């Protein structure tokens, strides 16, 4: 699966995107966040406050308990500020 990061989430993680095989035991977005936070302090910073981060799976907004699978495009970003 492909993971994308935008704005300050991207800066905290240190990269705009990465490809990943669905890790063992990861079935939802929140599972993925928990798993990422164990990999590197950048993710810990990015996901220090889940309420500050929005998630899209396959370019649709979803909640943290949304299920994910290997072909998905998952994006993490702050609340939007365009317009």
């Amino acid at each position, binding site marked *: 699966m492909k993971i*994308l990061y*935008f*704005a*300050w989430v991207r800066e905290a993680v240190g990269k705009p995107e990465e490809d990943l095989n669905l890790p063992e035991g990861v079935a939802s977005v929140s599972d993925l966040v928990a798993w990422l936070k164990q990999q590197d302090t950048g993710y810990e910073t990015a996901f220090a406050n889940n309420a500050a981060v929005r998630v*899209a799976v396959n*370019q*649709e*907004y979803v909640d943290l308990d949304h299920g994910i699978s290997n072909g998905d495009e998952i*994006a993490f*970003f*702050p*609340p*939007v*500020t*365009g*317009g």
Partner: protein
Amino acid sequence: MIRVQAVDFDLGDELKKMTDGNTGIGGLCSFVGLVRDMANDERISAMTLEHYPGMTEKALAEIEKQAHSRWNLDETLIIHRYGRLEPGEQIVLVAAASAHRGAAFEACHFLIDWLKTKAPFWKLEDTPGGGKWVDARTSDDEAVSRWNKLN
């Protein structure tokens, strides 16, 4: 119609194209957002707009579709720029044309309110203290919530 682009747009040309040849249109309402030179009492020298290519277009198309399902509209237009913009530059244009002015006004207002809370754009402001990501505003959430009540 929706467009996501780095280059500037010609406001007059874009609006004119919406009504040309359609004499059933009685009113055209538009809103242009511009880069301000100040934010939170800090001077802004420039702004960089990041977005999520692919999802941006899907979100804007959905916003436009929502507007057409709620009002009787002849034309709608959303143009949003990305990249580096300086104070005074145009960021976004939303517009709605309808037989009646009420629908044009409400739809136009709806388009920008929804865009501000749903379209995946993020602003990075260049201030004297360095680059600062703009925080989402509670007032934008409130602005969009009044449209939800109308569902």
